[in-house]
């Protein structure tokens, strides 16, 4: 009964491809996020959605497009993948101050 689940766990793809990562939370939280963790483990917020509405967009290239079909899902689509996009992407959700993270998607662009 994973609270925040994202798929796939690993993704290896070539430069220029388009890929999507899916995220679902069963906690009933109103807010969902996407974070990028680089090789130095720095966690950087990318997007935040509250009840399907975008509330934070942290100067992420527009090749990244989040989509929230309902408040339990927040997917991330990436167009024209670049080498620098290689990282671990974490989905998270929150209600109040508590924040729960998904298990992460390790994206490798070759």
């Amino acid at each position: 009964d994973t609270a925040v689940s994202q798929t796939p766990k690993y993704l290896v793809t070539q430069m220029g491809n388009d890929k999507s990562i899916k995220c679902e939370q069963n906690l009933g939280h109103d807010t969902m996020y996407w974070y990028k963790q680089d090789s130095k483990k720095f966690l950087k917020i990318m997007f935040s959605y509250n009840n399907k509405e975008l509330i934070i967009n942290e100067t992420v290239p527009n090749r990244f497009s989040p989509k929230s079909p309902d408040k339990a899902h927040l997917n991330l689509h990436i167009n024209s993948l670049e080498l620098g996009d290689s990282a671990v992407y974490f989905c998270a959700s929150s209600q109040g101050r508590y924040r729960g993270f998904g298990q992460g998607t390790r994206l490798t662009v070759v």
Partner: protein
Amino acid sequence: GQQVMQIPQYQHVQEGEDFTTYCNSSTTLSNIQWYKQRPGGHPVFLIQLVKSGEVKKQKRLTFQFGEAKKNSSLHITATQTTDVGTYFCAGHSSNTGKLIFGQGTTLQVKP
């Protein structure tokens, strides 16, 4: 922009030794949270501190929030190999409400 700095970046200790990581914010925080990320895992929420000068304990872990609400520390007494991982602090800005993560401190424990 607002920053949350965490030191040290890495720490190697012998099992049984104590460990402390420090977190400093450039601005006042409404609260501070701590997370632990095991190698290959995801950040897991440990605790939240809200009050100025607050101290909370979880078994061998002691968390403090500074009087000025701009710094915090996590102290682990008598480390064990299960303590291995990266510890992140994260503070909610009093101004913007955004949660800003520190860079993390990666702890290695030698048995």
